[in-house]
């Protein structure tokens, strides 16, 4: 019988989770490792098989749907658990399962001597299941299920070393900030279903143009709410504060969740609902502006961070900004392309950083690294490839995808966005090579005892690095315009984004301008690199001199513009104090007071009555008589 095509992909990791729960420790470390990696590897194989099956179909028929079962049916609203494979989700599952598999293999080495080894892979597999459900969902509701599922797994994995209070705090922060985003997403979904009647993609996107007035308030609000959800998940302004703290989790987690897969869910959702966003140009503008702003803002903070993982975290936020910028300007294809290449080199950067930390026995501060090139040859080589890729130097992957985005921005007339993107590219190149130089080149500032048991990572960690390095190198080439038909990757995505869509708003540029654009972006990257080398390698004093010249700027960058502290003071503390007062004063004094008050009222009344019982027989006789008299008078009046 033909093996099921789609639902097997998320089912495999879920099966691994169930198996590991049932078998428990009897599995042992090797068993758990094999089970976990095997499951993800198998789902990668199935993903490839499904992608090939999709590619075999003619251009227009490129969409496979599999309905598992009817989930909910109430009145005229219904939603079912169904999976959709189209070029966009094909790319996503390949990236997710591919990079996921490599990271699983890497983790077996990285987490080798962690006591709760089994629990780690349990969470990792659960995450893979949730991410694959998110990507393969055929309606927004099921996507939301995956959406919150990955939120939960990131909460569990960030707080994996739960005995560390800071990790637990970071986990909670991540979940709550995500929840704020999900609040927006939920409301957006409700708006869409109320007007169009369904959340299933095809039905929703076909009904949308009639249900909504193009550019009207309803569609704009709905899409902005969806974008709010995306900013929560993909850590854009203003809901990005959780990602840097999420570095508390183990490094493979940062690589998988906070670089390659989960954070891209926001971009995927915006790309998936591109036809809705195109109905609301204002929202598109907002997406572009927020993307560009975040790209630049995060890049600036990245300059001044000393923790290797924090630098990479801000770099991720910045690169995500680029992806949203691409979507904002209408170049959804470029956004997804950058998403793919970013997954490769950012995952590599994180894993490389993990290997460095592993080697230096958990040392994460760049100021106590340096000169590791010789001692960690493989890590150094792969990290170098990734750093060049992210800087956007041809022929590496980063160049093609970033250039596509800048080209899209320029072509669609968003010159401001293009300029910001260019500036961001320079900064990116600078801080990435700053990291590279501080970590691998120059004098070794490694502490003494870390020095002598400095060792290269085991093969189980190196091989994934090597594979990712290759991908970072060739990943971009599928963007080369081999045949005339333009950009092969975008042509692959055309059935999803529609031919006009991606380039509809784009004015075809003359080849001369296109070459000029490419030159400019390459020069920008080189500028960043040269400046980084000069500042940190040739003339270390330059960095310090700069710091003295603008101390205020430096302090602001180091403290991340005090955004965290600001939000705490503006939101968290007042909320806490308000609810404290609400409880102590309002609930206990007023409401409860009123209830007890009624009780005291009756008690007071009865005390009053008691005064009449004086104990003197005389008074009782008196009342008796008074009663009789009153009675008499009453009859009298009759």
């Amino acid at each position: 019988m033909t093996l099921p095509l789609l639902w097997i992909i998320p089912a495999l990791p879920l099966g691994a989770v169930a198996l590991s729960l049932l078998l428990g420790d009897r599995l042992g470390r090797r068993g758990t490792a094999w089970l976990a990696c095997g499951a993800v590897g198998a789902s990668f194989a199935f993903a490839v098989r499904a992608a090939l099956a999709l590619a075999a179909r003619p251009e227009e028929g490129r969409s496979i749907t599999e309905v598992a079962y009817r989930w909910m049916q109430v009145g005229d609203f219904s939603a079912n658990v169904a999976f959709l494979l189209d070029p966009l989700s094909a790319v996503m599952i390949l990236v997710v399962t591919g990079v996921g598999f490599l990271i699983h293999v890497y983790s077996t080495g990285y987490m080798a001597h962690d006591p709760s080894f089994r629990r780690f892979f349990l969470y990792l597999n659960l995450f893979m299941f949730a991410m694959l459900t998110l990507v393969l969902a055929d309606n927004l509701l099921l996507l939301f299920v995956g959406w919150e599922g990955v939120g939960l797994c990131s909460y569990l994995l960030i707080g994996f070393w739960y005995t560390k209070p800071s990790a637990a705090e970071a986990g909670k922060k991540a979940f709550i900030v995500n929840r704020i985003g999900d609040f927006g997403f939920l409301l957006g979904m409700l708006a869409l279903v109320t007007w169009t009647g369904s959340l299933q993609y095809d039905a929703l996107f076909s009904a949308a143009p009639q249900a909504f007035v193009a550019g009207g308030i309803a569609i704009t609000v709905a899409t902005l709410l969806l974008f709010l959800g995306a900013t929560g998940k993909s850590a854009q302004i203003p809901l990005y504060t959780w990602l840097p703290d999420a570095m508390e989790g183990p490094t493979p987690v940062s690589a998988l969740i906070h670089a390659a897969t989960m954070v891209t869910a926001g971009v995927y959702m915006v790309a998936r609902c591109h036809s809705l966003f195109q109905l609301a140009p204002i929202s598109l503008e907002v997406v572009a502006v927020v993307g560009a702003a975040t790209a630049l803002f995060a890049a600036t903070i990245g300059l001044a961070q000393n923790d290797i993982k924090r630098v990479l975290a801000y770099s991720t936020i910045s690169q995500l900004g680029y992806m949203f910028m691409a979507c904002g300007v209408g170049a959804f294809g470029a956004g997804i392309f950058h998403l793919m290449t970013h997954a490769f080199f950012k995952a590599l950067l994180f894993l490389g950083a993990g290997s460095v930390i592993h080697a230096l026995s958990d040392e994460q501060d760049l100021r106590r690294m340096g000169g590791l090139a010789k001692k960690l040859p493989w890590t150094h080589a792969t990290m170098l490839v990734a750093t060049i890729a992210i800087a956007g130097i041809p022929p590496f992957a980063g160049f093609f995808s970033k250039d596509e985005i800048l080209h899209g921005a320029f072509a669609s007339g968003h010159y401001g966005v293009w300029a910001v993107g260019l500036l961001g590219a320079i900064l990116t190149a600078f801080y990435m090579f700053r990291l590279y130089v501080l970590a691998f080149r120059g004098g070794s500032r490694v502490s003494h005892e870390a020095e002598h048991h400095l060792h290269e990572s085991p093969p189980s960690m190196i091989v994934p690095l090597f594979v990712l390095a290759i991908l970072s190198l060739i990943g971009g080439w599928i963007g080369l315009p081999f045949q005339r038909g333009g950009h092969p990757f975008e042509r692959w995505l055309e059935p999803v984004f529609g031919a006009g869509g991606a380039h509809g708003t784009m004015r075809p540029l003359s080849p001369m301008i296109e070459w000029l654009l490419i030159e400019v972006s390459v020069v920008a990257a080189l500028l960043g690199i040269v400046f980084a080398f000069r500042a940190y390698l040739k003339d270390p004093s330059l960095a310090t001199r700069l710091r003295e010249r603008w101390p205020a700027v430096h302090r602001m960058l180091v403290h991340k513009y005090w955004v965290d502290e600001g939000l705490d003071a503006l939101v968290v503390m007042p909320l806490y104090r308000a609810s404290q007062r609400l409880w102590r004063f309002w609930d206990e004094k007023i409401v409860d007071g009123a209830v007890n008050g009624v009780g005291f009222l009756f008690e007071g009344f009865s005390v009053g009555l008691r005064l009449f019982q004086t104990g003197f027989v005389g008074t009782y006789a008196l009342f008796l008589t008074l009663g009789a008299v009153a009675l008499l008078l009453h009859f009298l009046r009759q």
Partner: protein
Amino acid sequence: MMLLLFAVFAITLVGCSLMVVLHRNPVTSALFLVVAFCALAGLYLLLQAEFLAMVQVIVYAGAIMVLFLFVIMYLNLKRDVEDGLQFALRRGAGWLLGILLLGTAALFLSRGWAPGATTEASPPPIGNSAAELTSILLLVGIVGAVVIGRGRAKPPGSEEPAP
């Protein structure tokens, strides 16, 4: 002639009642009460309730008053001490209330509220049950008296006060 008798009895009755209430010495009050009861017996005679008059004299004047006198003597009561402002006030209030009551009663009568106007509710068949009822009541009275009286055998205050 009947009216004359009625007047005599009425006056003695009212006079004795007042003396019973006003006089400080309980013994004198008791004696005046006896006279009052006799006047009342006379009135009963006027109302052709001869048997009742006899019973009145025997039961009330004879038995109950004797009991009263016995208790008064037994407790060896002297004159009541009832002076001071508080009692004056009470007496004043008492009289005031009395006049008020009489006023309303007078108003009633002046309204010509015909006594016979009460609807003729059929009296419940008291028939022979009257006898049993009175006997039970008397029994209860005797038992109560015995129970309360019994207390005197034990030295006072050795156990909680008699009910």
